[in-house]
C-alpha cells in the first residue's frame, strides 16, 4: 500500500473535551479521501494537527513512509502539505499573483520581479485548469476564483498533499461543480487530497474513500463506490440509546409565529443564505430546526430577531407584522431569545449577574423610576432567579459574569429569557458546551415553557437533543427547508440524510 500520509492513533485533548480519541487516517497517493463527521466530530482538529497548528498528545504522523514532527505550518509546507482553509487567508487589495507569491517572492536586487512569478502562475493555472487572472485584485474576483487562488498558493509551493476544509460552504452550485472537476484534475496530476466535509452527495461525486469520525472517535473507512448514503449517514450519526426524556404529549394551539418566504442573499457573493423559508410555530409546541452548522440557521435567527434587516419575506408574531420592527419592539412584542453566542450577544460579561439579568427589562417600570434604577428590585429579581433557576456563582448577584462557568452563564440567560414570559421563545444551541446536568436542566425548562402554552423555536445541531425535545422537526440545508418530520416517526439516520443534503422533501 502506497500511503503518502498516515496519521496513526492520534489523540488530542483540550480542556474538558477529547477532540481526537485514537484516530487514524491513511491517505493513499493519488486518491481523494473524504473526512466525514458532524460538528464537533474532530475533523478540523485532526487536520490542524496535520497542518502543524496543534501538537498531538499521542500518536505519530508519517509522510511518505517516514515519521515526521510537524511543529508549524512552515514545516507542513516543506513536507508538501498544504491547506485550503474554510475562511480564506487572502489580502483583499493585492492582486492574485501577489497573494500567491507572498512569503516566497522572487526578487532582483530587492525589487519584486513579478514577471517570472506570473509566468509560473500562468503555467500552473493552465496545467491544473485553474482559471484565474494573475493581475486581478482579490476584492474584484468571485469567491470561486478566490478559492482557486488559495489552491494555487499551495501548488506554487509544490504541495503534493492538499487538504480542503469544507470547501463548498461558500460556493454556488455552479462553482461547486467546477471545484469537483478541479479536484479530479489535481489527482490526474499526481496530487493526493483530503476533503473535509459533511455533504454526502459531494462525497459520492468525487471521493474514492471516506473515513468517518464521530464525537472524536474513529468509526471506520469505506470505499465510496461500495457504500450508500444511508450507510455513511449511519456511521456519521450513529444509532444510539438516547436518554429518555419524560414528556407529556404536546397540545399545540393557535399559530403564534409565522415566517413566509424569507430569503437572504450574501451581499459580497451571490450566494443565497436563506432561500424561500416558510414555517409556523404554534403555542404549546416545540419546533426544532435541525441541520449542520452553516446551512442558514444563524442567518434565519438573526433575521427573525431583527439583527439583520429583511428585504424578502414576512415575519408575523401574534398577527402583528414585525418584519421591519426594531429589536426592542420585537422583544417587547413577545420574543425571548437565547442566543447562539452567549458571550457576544447574550451577556455583557463585565456586568454583574444581577445587571445581566435585567438586560432585556431594565427599562420597565418594575426596575426603574423616572430613569433611576431601583436597585432593591433588581436585587430581589436576581435572588429570585438565582433560586428558581439554580444559577451558581461566586458572590451571588454581585458576581462579575465573566467569572462564572459557561453552564451557569447559560442558565442566567435562560432564566432571564424565560422569566420574561414571552409568547415565543427562541433557543439557539442552548446546551452547547454544557455538562450533562445543565443540559438536562435546560431541556426541562424548555418543556416547561411548552407545557405552559408558549411557542418554542429550538435551533440545534445535536441530533439527540432534536429527537428528544422537539414536537416537530424541520431540517435546513443550504438555506432551505428540505423536510419536515415527526420525531415519533423518523429516525436519526433519516434526519442525517437530509442534513447532509442527500434528500429533499416538499414541506407543507
Amino acid at each position, binding site marked *: 500500500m502506497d500511503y503518502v500520509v498516515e496519521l496513526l492513533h492520534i489523540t488530542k485533548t483540550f480542556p474538558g473535551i477529547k477532540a481526537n480519541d485514537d484516530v487514524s487516517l491513511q491517505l493513499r497517493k493519488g486518491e481523494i479521501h473524504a473526512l466525514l463527521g458532524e460538528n464537533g466530530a474532530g475533523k478540523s482538529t485532526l487536520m490542524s494537527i496535520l497542518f502543524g497548528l496543534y501538537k498531538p498528545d499521542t500518536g505519530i504522523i508519517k509522510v511518505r513512509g517516514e515519521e515526521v514532527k510537524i511543529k508549524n505550518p512552515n514545516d507542513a509546507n516543506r513536507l508538501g502539505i498544504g491547506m485550503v482553509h474554510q475562511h480564506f487567508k487572502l489580502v483583499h487589495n493585492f492582486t492574485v499573483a501577489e497573494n500567491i507569491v507572498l512569503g516566497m517572492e522572487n526578487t532582483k536586487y530587492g525589487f519584486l520581479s513579478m514577471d517570472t512569478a506570473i509566468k509560473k502562475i500562468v503555467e500552473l493555472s493552465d496545467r491544473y485548469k485553474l482559471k484565474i487572472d494573475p493581475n486581478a485584485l482579490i476584492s474584484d474576483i468571485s469567491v470561486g476564483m478566490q478559492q482557486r487562488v488559495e489552491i494555487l498558493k499551495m501548488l506554487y509551493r509544490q504541495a503534493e498533499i492538499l487538504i480542503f476544509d469544507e470547501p463548498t460552504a461558500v460556493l454556488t452550485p455552479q462553482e461547486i461543480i467546477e471545484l469537483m472537476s478541479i479536484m479530479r484534475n489535481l489527482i490526474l496530476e499526481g496530487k493526493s487530497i483530503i476533503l473535509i466535509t459533511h455533504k454526502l452527495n459531494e462525497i459520492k461525486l468525487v471521493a474514492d474513500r471516506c473515513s468517518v469520525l464521530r464525537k472524536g472517535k474513529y468509526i471506520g473507512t469505506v470505499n465510496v463506490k461500495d457504500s450508500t448514503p444511508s450507510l455513511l449517514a449511519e456511521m456519521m450519526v450513529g444509532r444510539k440509546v438516547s436518554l429518555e426524556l419524560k414528556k407529556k404529549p404536546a397540545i399545540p394551539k393557535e399559530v403564534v409565529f409565522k415566517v413566509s418566504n424569507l430569503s437572504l442573499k450574501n451581499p459580497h457573493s451571490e450566494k443565497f443564505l436563506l432561500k424561500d423559508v416558510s414555517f409556523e410555530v404554534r403555542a404549546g409546541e416545540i419546533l426544532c430546526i435541525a441541520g449542520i452548522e452553516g446551512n442558514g440557521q444563524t442567518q434565519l435567527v438573526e433575521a427573525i430577531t431583527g439583527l439583520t434587516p429583511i428585504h424578502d419575506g414576512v415575519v408575523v408574531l401574534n398577527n402583528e407584522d414585525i418584519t421591519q420592527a426594531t429589536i*426592542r419592539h420585537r422583544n*417587547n412584542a413577545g420574543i425571548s431569545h437565547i442566543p447562539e453566542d452567549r458571550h457576544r450577544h*447574550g*451577556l455583557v460579561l*463585565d456586568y454583574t449577574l444581577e445587571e445581566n439579568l435585567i438586560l432585556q427589562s431594565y427599562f420597565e417600570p418594575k426596575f426603574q423610576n423616572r430613569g*433611576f434604577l431601583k436597585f432593591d428590585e433588581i436585587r430581589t429579581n436576581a435572588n429570585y432567579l438565582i433560586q428558581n433557576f439554580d444559577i451558581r456563582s461566586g458572590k451571588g448577584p454581585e458576581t462579575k459574569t465573566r467569572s462564572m462557568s459557561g453552564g451557569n452563564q447559560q442558565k442566567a440567560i435562560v432564566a432571564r429569557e424565560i422569566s420574561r414570559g414571552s409568547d415565543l421563545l427562541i433557543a439557539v444551541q442552548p446546551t452547547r458546551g454544557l455538562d450533562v446536568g445543565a443540559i438536562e436542566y435546560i431541556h426541562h425548562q424548555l418543556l416547561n415553557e411548552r407545557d405552559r402554552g408558549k411557542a418554542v423555536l429550538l435551533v440545534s445541531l445535536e441530533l439527540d437533543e432534536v429527537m428528544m425535545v422537539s414536537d416537530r422537526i424541520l431540517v435546513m440545508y443550504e438555506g432551505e427547508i428540505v423536510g419536515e418530520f415527526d420525531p415519533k416517526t423518523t429516525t436519526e439516520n433519516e434526519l442525517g440524510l437530509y442534513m447532509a443534503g442527500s434528500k429533499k422533501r416538499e414541506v407543507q
Partner: protein
Amino acid sequence: MKKTFDWSNVISNIKSYVTSHWFGLTGLLLLFIFLFITPSFLTTTEVGYLINLWVLIITAFVLIVGKVVQFFRKNKHFVPSESAPLISGLGSVLAIIIGLIVGLIIMYIVNPEQAFQGFLVILKGGFNQGMASFGTMIYYAVPIILTGLSVSFAFRTGLFNIGASGQLIFGAFVAVYIGIKWDFLAGVPFLHWFVAVLGALLAGAAWGAIPGLLKAYRNVNEVVSSIMLNYIAVYWVAIMIKADQSIYFKTQDRLYDILPSAVTPKFGLDQIFVGSQINIGIVVAILIAIILYIILFKTTFGYELKAVGLNRDAAKYAGVNAKRNIVLSMIISGAVAGIAGAMIFLDRGAWFKPEIVLRPEGFTGIAISLLGLNHPFGVVFAGLFYGSLERGGEYLNLLRFKHEIIDIIIAVIIYVSALGLILQKLVIKNLKWNSKIFQKIKRVILKESPSDQSEGGATQ
C-alpha cells in the same frame, strides 16, 4: 427613591467609621499637621531636607500598610490577583512611581546637588506653602479634573474623546463672550456667571456632538475627527474674536476683561485658604463628578451607555439604540469639557488670547482619566494629585529647575498606564500570591495558626 434622613443614623455611621478607621485617620492627621507646620530648620538645611523626605515616605508607607492589614483582616478570602479594581489601582500607583522615578533621574542628571531637594518639592506639591498653596493647587486642578471627567465619561461608553481641547476652547470663548457683553445680567447676583457657565456647557456640548454624530452615522473614527475639530475650534474662535471689535483688545492681543459679575465667585473659600486663588470652581467640579457618577451608576441611561461601551453586540440585542447613545455620550463629554474652559477663563486676570495653540488641559485630562481608573471620584483625586504635582513644578522654579519636568513626569505616567493591562497582568498577577513568603505574611497579619492555612488558601 427612599431617603431616610435620620440624623442619629448618620451620626452612628460616622462614629463607626471613625472607630474602624482610627489607624488610617490618625496617620492622615499626622501627615497633614506635618506638611502644614514645617519648622524652618527642616526647610533650610541639607539634613533637614532628607529628614523631611524620609518622614514623608515612612508615613505614607505605614499608612498604606495599615490599610492593607485592615483590609485583609476584613476579607479573609480575598484573592489579590482576582480583584480588578485592586490590580488597576496598583497599576496606577506603579505608573505614578515610575513617572516620578524617571523625573528624579532626569533631575539628577541635570542638576545633581539639588535633585533630591527638587524631588521633595515635587512630592510636597501643593503643600509647599501651607494653606495658600493648597488652595491655589485646588484652583489649578479644577479644569484638569473637569477635562478628566469629560474624557473618563467618554471612555466608559467606549469612546475616545481626544477633542476636549477644542470643546474647552469653544466653551471658554462663549463663556467669556457672555462675560463681556451680556451686561444686562449683571444685576442679579451670580446670574451672570451662571449663564456664562451654562453657555460654555452648551457650546462644549455642541462641539462634542459633531464627532459623535460623525461616528454614529458615518462611522468616522472619533479620534481623527476630534483632532481636526481641535484645530478648527482654535482657528474659528480666533477668527470670531478678531472680527469683533467690541470684545477684542487689539493692542494687547487679548479679549477685554470680563465684568466682575461674571467672575467665578469665591463664597468665602478664600478665607479658609488664605492667600490662595481658590474659588467655587472646585465645588462645580465635585458637583459634576457626582452628577456623572449618578448618571453612570444609578440610571438606566448610564446602564445603556456602559453596555454599549462594554459589548455593543449584546447591547444591540437588548434593543439599545447604539447610535443615539454614542451621540449623547459625546454631548455630555463635550459639555463637561466646555465647563472646564469656563473655569479657566472666568476669573480676574485670566485673559483669553486668540492664539493658535491647543490648550494642554485637554491632554492632561487623558492622564487623569487613566490614573483615576475612569471613575468620576477617582478622577477627582487624580486631578488633585496632578494639581499638587503642578504646584510642585511652580515651586521648582525657585530652585534651578524648570517646571516642564512635571510635564515629563505626567507624560511618562500616561505611557506606563498605557502599557497598563499587560504590565498589570505580568507584574501583579504573577506575584506568587501562593508562595511561602506571602502565606507567612498573611499568617502574621491575620494572626492565624498554620492549621488555618487551608481555609484561607488562595485559589488560582
